[in-house]
């Protein structure tokens, strides 16, 4: 990769039909950066989950409301920032999917998976009130044990 960061940004209406494009772009980027097959898979899934959240929970699947997906390609890490035009939410307040009473719920695992598979995940509300999720995957995975 070049010495400076490359950026790739998709700004899409809230339509789940675009997920295929989002995944193709994600896979091209992780492939070009040299992520191994497994890391690329989890990045793909995290971008997918977060894009779905932005379109669905954030923008209520309103095709007029946009989701921006920004990829910042560094030499040793990929930073992804996904922004919607919804009303945001408090990431502290979402139910813990591991709590016994939630274990058999049919939903509520997306953010948990993103946190599990990405090296860093941050939630922030934009000035317009929408949600901005920023996640980082490092090329050389950190040693966790």
């Amino acid at each position, binding site marked *: 990769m070049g010495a400076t960061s490359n950026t790739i940004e998709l700004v899409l209406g809230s339509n789940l039909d675009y997920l295929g494009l989002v995944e193709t772009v994600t896979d091209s980027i992780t492939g070009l950066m040299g992520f191994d097959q497994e890391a690329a898979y989890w990045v793909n899934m995290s971008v997918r*989950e977060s894009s*779905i959240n932005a379109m669905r929970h954030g923008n209520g699947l309103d095709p007029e409301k946009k989701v921006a997906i920004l990829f910042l390609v560094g030499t040793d890490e990929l930073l992804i920032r996904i922004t919607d035009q919804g009303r945001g939410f408090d990431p502290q307040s979402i139910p813990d999917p591991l709590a016994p009473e939630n*274990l058999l719920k049919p939903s509520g695992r*997306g953010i948990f998976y993103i946190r599990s598979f990405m090296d860093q995940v941050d939630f922030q509300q934009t000035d317009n009130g929408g949600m901005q999720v920023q996640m980082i995957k490092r090329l050389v995975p950190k040693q966790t044990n």
Partner: protein
Amino acid sequence: MEIKKRTVNEVVILDMSGKITLGEGTAALRNEVRNLLKEGCKKIILNLGEVNYVDSSGIGELVSAFTTTSNQGGKLKLLNLTKKLQELLSITKLLTVFEVHEDEQEALKDF
């Protein structure tokens, strides 16, 4: 996603392949299980060996299939988890909820 149906000793085995993700994949699984239960087939094995992508909605759908079947007095087991699916189930503490098998003969026992 593609689902092929086999019956072995009153147990229905669904050989699934492709993706279980929001939309097409999850709906196909839901319909299939719903229909089986409607027909009175309450012994179900989901063979997931050829399922190469499951997202959080897909995991949720597997959970729904399991609970719906259990609630109707049936049993739903999982067969041939890929490494990634195993990881997804493991970190959300679902690996102990499901009855999981790597061998079809074993899975067919004790329904």
